[in-house]
């Protein structure tokens, strides 16, 4: 056997490494394999970002969001949808809108894109009740039905006006009817049609309506994506003005449209759609460090990573030649949630006291060494449209001692007492508090703060230990219980909110419908999103108004009010977000933009960046 190996090595030397003909190829690193290329599974139970990166570019949607500024703009639709009109059908009230489709768009197999594709793509997942993203986009409480008017016009019926209509229904993915119809028909004859559709494969031969199409998936090794020749949007200029206007100039369709104002004044961004390369190879590595090494060696040009690079990698990549490291806000936050079904977490004063104690600045910049960015609101500042800059969290700008004092004052005012009262002299804690007694006269029992263990997430583990330290300093008996992620999820959701305080994180979306989902009183039941059990009729009313608002400027005002209410009542204390650190080879490739919420990779999960990447020669 030894000899066999040596002989094989000898053969390798003889053969040498075969070079590939001069094509424009960029190499990306991913560190997890795809689980499927099937769109039904991908937007259903297999919604992993790794599946999205190489594949989502194949599909279109009626509307999408502009690069960098995240404004809703037409995708495959021709102009905006018509205003919603109330109609009554069979005694139920529905709202209807008409959407016109662009003419002259072709799938990569040459078939023209028509209203049939749209109707098919909406009806199949809706009828089969496909889970996951399908269900979220075509929410049955919003979406009612879709009708074809002619080859380039559809009518969409919804139950009620809602933000989910714009960010869900109008942005649902569109597949080719010609490819999927025979498969769908076969599926209908199966006992579980949706499972049949989801497990159908391989779907490498499925036509694309985007700039790239899959060409090969070597499981565990790489995915090859090839540029679609004659991509209809190639050469399209996207011009974003500082006044908020977005202009699209599409030569192949001889179109020139401007939305959100007039095309005048200073230009903030200008992007021209590619594709500029012949193919993209998504190389699959099994761990981050392998991917980073390959970037340093120049084997890959960019690392796709939904969580960004760890600080250690970024530090080392900054010193590497021809590598640029970019930093953006991640779209997500880590938080602690109070169980407001239990005493004393239901007391606002208690929650406020904890909120005062948590020094995000010290935590993020000193303790966590800048690996985390302080964040006090559920809408990160990078989400410029929705972020409320008037939010001032408790204890902003205070020193540790001032924070102790503020927390003690709040507690005292609410009627809390101590057996040994904490004492602060000359800006220093000189006596730790002991034996906290609640306003009801009973001593406060140990309060469990569940957080993921260091093995799962050292950031949260460290944060939890510090929060318990600060609380203990003034006598609040919080004990950090570092446990498995699974265990926390289990306690919170499966055991019907069996917790005092827990610490987890959320990945979020640009449109902040989660403001309602996380705190809406009807979501406080078993398995619901409202884990704190926050119940505030005023909030509920406002949240309903917010979600039903289809004018986004008005929705923004309502969203601000929701954020302010949450900052005051603190059912959650938002702790921090992480920076999205990414790296690419500056000697090999060029991106259209690198400053964007959630990083360069965010463009790869949908549209955008992938069509802009250029090779430098």
């Amino acid at each position: 056997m030894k000899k066999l190996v040596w002989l094989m090595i000898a053969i390798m030397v003889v053969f040498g490494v075969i070079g590939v003909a001069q094509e424009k190829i960029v190499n990306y690193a991913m560190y997890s394999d795809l689980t499927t290329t099937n769109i039904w599974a991908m937007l259903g139970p297999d919604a992993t970002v790794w599946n999205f990166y190489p594949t989502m570019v194949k599909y279109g949607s009626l509307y999408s969001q502009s690069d960098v500024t995240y404004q809703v703009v037409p995708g495959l639709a021709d102009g905006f949808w018509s205003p919603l009109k109330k109609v009554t059908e069979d005694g139920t009230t529905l709202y209807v809108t008409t959407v016109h489709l662009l003419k002259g768009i072709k799938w990569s197999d040459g078939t023209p894109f028509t209203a049939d594709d749209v109707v098919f793509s909406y009806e199949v997942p809706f009828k089969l009740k496909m889970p996951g993203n399908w269900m979220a986009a075509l929410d049955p409480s919003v979406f009612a039905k879709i009708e074809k008017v002619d080859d380039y016009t559809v009518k969409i019926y919804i139950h009620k006006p809602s933000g989910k209509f714009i960010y869900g229904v109008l942005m649902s993915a569109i597949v080719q009817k010609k490819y999927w119809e025979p498969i769908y028909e076969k599926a209908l004859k199966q006992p579980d049609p949706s499972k049949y559709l989801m497990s159908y494969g391989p779907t490498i031969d499925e036509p694309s309506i985007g700039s790239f199409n899959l060409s090969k998936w070597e499981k565990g090794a790489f995915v090859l994506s090839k540029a679609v020749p004659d991509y209809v949007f190639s050469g399209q200029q996207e011009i974003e003005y500082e006044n908020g206007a977005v202009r699209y100039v599409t030569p192949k369709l001889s179109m020139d449209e401007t939305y959100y104002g007039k095309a005048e004044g200073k230009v903030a961004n200008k992007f021209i759609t590619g594709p500029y390369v012949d193919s993209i190879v998504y190389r699959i590595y099994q761990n981050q460090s392998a991917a980073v090494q390959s970037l340093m060696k120049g084997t890959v040009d960019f690392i796709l990573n939904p969580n960004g690079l760890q600080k250690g990698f970024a530090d080392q990549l900054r010193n590497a030649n021809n590598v640029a490291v970019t930093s953006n806000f991640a779209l997500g936050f880590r938080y602690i949630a109070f169980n407001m079904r239990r005493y004393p977490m239901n007391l606002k004063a208690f929650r406020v006291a904890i909120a005062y104690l948590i020094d995000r600045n010290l935590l993020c910049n000193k303790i966590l060494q800048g690996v985390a960015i302080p964040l006090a609101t559920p809408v990160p500042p990078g989400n410029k449209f929705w972020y409320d800059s008037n939010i001032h969290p408790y204890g902003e700008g205070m020193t540790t001692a001032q924070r102790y004092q503020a927390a003690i004052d709040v507690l005292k005012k609410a009627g809390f007492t101590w057996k040994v009262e904490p004492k602060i002299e000359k800006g220093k804690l000189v006596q730790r508090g002991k034996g906290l007694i609640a306003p009801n006269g009973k001593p406060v029992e140990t309060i469990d703060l569940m957080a993921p263990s260091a093995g799962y997430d050292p950031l949260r583990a460290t944060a939890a230990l510090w929060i318990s330290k600060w609380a203990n300093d003034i006598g609040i008996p919080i004990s950090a219980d570092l446990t498995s992620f699974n265990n926390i999820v289990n306690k919170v959701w499966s055991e019907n909110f069996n917790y005092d305080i827990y610490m987890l994180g959320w990945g979020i979306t640009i449109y902040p419908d989660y403001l309602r989902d996380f705190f809406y009183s009807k979501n406080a039941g078993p398995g619901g999103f409202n884990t704190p059990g926050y119940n505030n009729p005023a909030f509920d009313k406002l949240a309903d108004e917010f979600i039903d608002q289809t004018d986004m400027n008005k929705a923004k005002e309502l969203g601000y009010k929701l954020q302010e209410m949450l900052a005051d009542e603190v059912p959650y204390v938002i702790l921090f977000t992480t920076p999205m650190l990414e790296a690419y080879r500056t000697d090999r490739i060029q991106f259209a933009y690198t400053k964007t919420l959630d990083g360069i990779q965010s463009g790869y999960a949908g549209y955008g960046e992938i069509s802009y990447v250029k090779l430098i020669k």
Partner: protein
Amino acid sequence: MSELQTVVKEPLWKIRIKLAWRGFLKNWNIFRQSKIGMLGLWIVIVFAILGFVVYPILAATVWRSSLAATVSYDPITGYDFQKINPSHPSLQHPLGTDPIGRDILSQLLYSTPREFMLGIFAALITVFIGTTVGTVAAYYGGILDTFFMRLADLILLFPMIAFLIVLSGMMKINMIMLALIIGILSGFGGITIVLRSQALTVKVKPFIESAKVSGARSFYIVFHHIVPNVMPLSFLYMMFSVTGAIFSEAVLSFLGLLNVKMSWGLMIHTSESGGYLLGAYIGRYWWLWVPAGLAITLLCGAFYFIGRGLDEVVNPRLRRR
């Protein structure tokens, strides 16, 4: 003989101790000749001193910190605000700091007694179960014997690390539970087979027969005559179990699957997942993985060395010609 005279003069327990001591000395002299065994013993002693003596002293003196210090040497919640972490070894931090500013040396020393306890606790359980089951199975034979031997076969089947990984993914496992699981699994496994065959050779010795004749109960014979005679072999396997337990812990912690606040494996996990162990540039942050990696290797190796040394005590055929 001289022993006979002492029987008259001294109480029984003293004689027992004396005999045990003499036996120990005899074995010790054999063990001492094994250079490998002695090397292992020394390493273990050094680790034990560092963990059980040096750490508590340091923690109570040099590493004590006040409520508002800028440096804390706590192995779990420690920090150093004055340095860019991970920082190089320096006077303040002889082995540097980890990515979030915790002192590596204090982590290393803090974990030492825990690794010892884990290893020894798991090994004690292994040996207790293995010895009891092995001797009982050998002495009584029959169905009991068949049952335990098949059980051992079954446990030999268990891919231990894989099993532990799956288990730790499903429930939170801490050090004590880990020790229990490893102890029980390996106790009923291969060690039973070895100790049973050893016990079988003891069982047929004449003194067992004479004990039976003089009316000793089976239970008494098993625990007073057979067990002491298989004890050295048990002790040998105990050393190997310690190695196994410490190694398993390190692997699970390295993969981030255990619910422990600090351990050698977790130290490497923290720096690996933080992005500091980068293949080609692994030397750049050597203090993040060398001390912990070396500690695991040394302690595992040391117990194994002791085991090899004991092998020569237990197994006369391996002794030098």
